[in-house]
């Protein structure tokens, strides 16, 4: 129960960060990705602020040995750069630059009952299932 509440709080804080930074607004995200338009560099500072904190977190927190509400840390270990990584990132980027939503902002934007966010999220879940059927064969 504590682990669930903790995860809920993390999602809540993450979502607030998206709203405060303006990243929950797809128009603002597209204002960054559309470099030929009226360019808005804000997204770069959002990333800078987030990565700076995450850098410190990943440097120091795993040294504690064990998370507060879980048995162990589960941190990715893969280092290989392969086709799925690159092709998947390219396909993701094409969708991101078309709609202005990546997964986090799209999910928190559901709260506005925006029709394009709802359609996007349903399609995003379907896209993940499609990948699993076509590529992973499951």
């Amino acid at each position, binding site marked *: 129960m504590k682990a669930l509440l903790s995860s809920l709080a993390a999602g809540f804080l993450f979502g607030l960060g998206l709203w405060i930074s303006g990243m929950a607004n797809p128009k603002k995200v597209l204002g960054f990705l559309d*470099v030929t338009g009226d360019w808005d560099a804000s997204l770069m500072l959002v990333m800078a602020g987030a990565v700076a904190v995450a850098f410190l977190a990943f440097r120091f927190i795993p040294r504690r040995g064990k998370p507060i509400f879980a048995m162990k840390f589960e941190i990715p270990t893969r280092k290989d750069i392969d086709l799925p990584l690159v092709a998947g990132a390219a396909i993701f980027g094409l969708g991101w630059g078309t709609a202005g939503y*990546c997964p986090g902002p799209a999910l928190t934007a559901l709260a506005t009952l925006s029709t394009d966010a709802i359609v996007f999220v349903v399609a995003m*879940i379907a896209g993940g299932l*499609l990948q699993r059927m076509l590529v992973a064969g499951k």
Partner: protein
Amino acid sequence: MHNFTPISALFGGALIGLASAWLLAANGRVAGVSGILHDALAAPASAWRGAFIAGLILAGVAWQLLAGPVPVREGFPLGWAAAAGLAVGFGTRWSGGCTSGHGVCGLGRVSARSLVAVLVFMAAGMLAAYVTRHLLGVAS
């Protein structure tokens, strides 16, 4: 660049970083939203993932209560929203991460794998934004 909002961007970004730090310290997990979403539906015993997603959506509700109604985009073609969503779902699952997993946490972990993903999805995102807005005239 009259839309540039450096202070709220940095502050909001730091909050996203803190949320990721909290999920790591408390739950031992990486805050990668695409992985959390895809695995919430696949993996057994992953209630923490559902809780994280609920938190994300609740933040949107709380924000509207605190800050008032937010502008909701009107007129974005739903066919394009569906196509973009399919691509984002497919691509993030194939590459194993998105802006949070590869972006925030991957760069935070100084992972070369994530850096490659970030450079590729940023470039593809800029290309798609240019093509859809300026060549195809998709309204956004």
